[in-house]
């Protein structure tokens, strides 16, 4: 555990002494709960439709797939037409595109970013390496199955997937959201212990609270 995460005593400017335990004080570690859908079916349908048509991607290029995200947002493919846009902070994003292989070190950051996003949130796994390891099936540092660690809604196969494949993957995701089946965040909350156990088995120095947001 790093020094700055250990318990310590801090002196405030006016002379008080405070004991700080960073892992508890700076984060809320309440586990996520299952969030029910809106009471009325019509309202939920409206919300789902709006969610599907307004996908805000978290700007986190986790792997080499990120290179095809740029053409996606520029003149040739222009995903803005479909209501897809970048969001630089996890609080405001609702779609996490795992763009390619995840090394263990990145997985840790991905989990934290994912947990900071607000329910409902969606995960798209990009590239063969998120499905079964792909090219890196025998690497000691990349995970082989993304759905062991995060609830995935859509996988897009390929190495690397072309922007057209991405667009069709997003269309598929929209279809799933509109039909009300994209409940990844709730699945994560229901199987929280299972996901956490998987994550902890891989991440060797777990120096953060179980749930942080």
């Amino acid at each position, binding site marked *: 555990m790093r020094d700055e995460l250990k318990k310590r005593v801090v002196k405030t400017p006016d002379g008080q002494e405070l004991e700080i335990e960073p892992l508890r004080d700076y984060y809320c570690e309440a586990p996520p709960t299952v969030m029910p859908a809106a009471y009325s079916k019509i309202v939920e349908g409206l919300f789902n439709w709006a969610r599907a048509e307004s996908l805000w991607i978290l700007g986190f290029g986790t792997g080499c797939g990120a290179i095809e995200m740029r053409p996606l947002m520029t003149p040739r493919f222009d995903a803005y037409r479909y209501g897809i846009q970048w969001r630089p902070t996890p609080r405001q994003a609702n779609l996490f595109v795992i763009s390619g292989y995840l090394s*263990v070190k990145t997985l840790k950051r991905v989990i934290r970013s994912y947990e900071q996003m607000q329910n409902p949130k969606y995960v798209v796994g990009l590239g063969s390496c998120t499905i079964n*390891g792909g090219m890196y099936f025998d690497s000691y540092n990349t995970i*082989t199955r993304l759905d062991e660690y995060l609830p995935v809604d859509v996988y897009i196969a390929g190495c690397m997937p072309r922007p057209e494949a991405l667009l069709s993957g997003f269309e598929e995701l929209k279809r799933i959201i509109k039909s009300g089946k994209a409940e990844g965040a709730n699945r994560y909350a229901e199987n929280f212990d299972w996901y956490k156990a998987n994550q902890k088995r891989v991440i060797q120095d777990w120096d953060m609270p179980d749930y942080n947001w």
Partner: protein
Amino acid sequence: MRQISMRELYEILKQIFPLGELTEQRSNLAFITVDRAQLRPLLLHLRDREGFTHLVLLTAVDWIEDGSFQLTYLLCDRLGQRDLGLRVMLPRDGAAMESIHDLWPTAATYQRELREMFGIAFPESPRVEEDFILEGWTGTPPYRRDFDTLKYSNETFAPRPGRETRDPEGYMKEQLYPDGN
């Protein structure tokens, strides 16, 4: 200035330093085996007198059969258009080496990587004990030959069932010559 060949350079250097064998790979690339104690004065000499000012890379090779690590310091003389690699052999057990970060600051990065990936100690190098690429790695350093990455991956990462991996040689033989000839 007449371009001197790598062998001539070797002869010149040999008058000053005790050197090991020379391998001429190309007309502008050669590798010289040197003793661990000779490395630092030799590097200084090459840098300041012979124009090898650019440290291209510093890396290690694991010769597990001989029980030794080979450290390769590759230097480049841009104006002379030639490269010289220095090989230093270290015993594999408790491998440690002097740091050269004061000659080239970039060497500190290479040494951090070697420390992490091969487990070679560089006691004086700055920030050498910090995690560089891996995080909290406690097992065998992964670039060592006795670390089996496939085994580690299968044990750690829950591979998705259904993937078949074949040895290419045996599989192609089976496909092309099914009767076993």
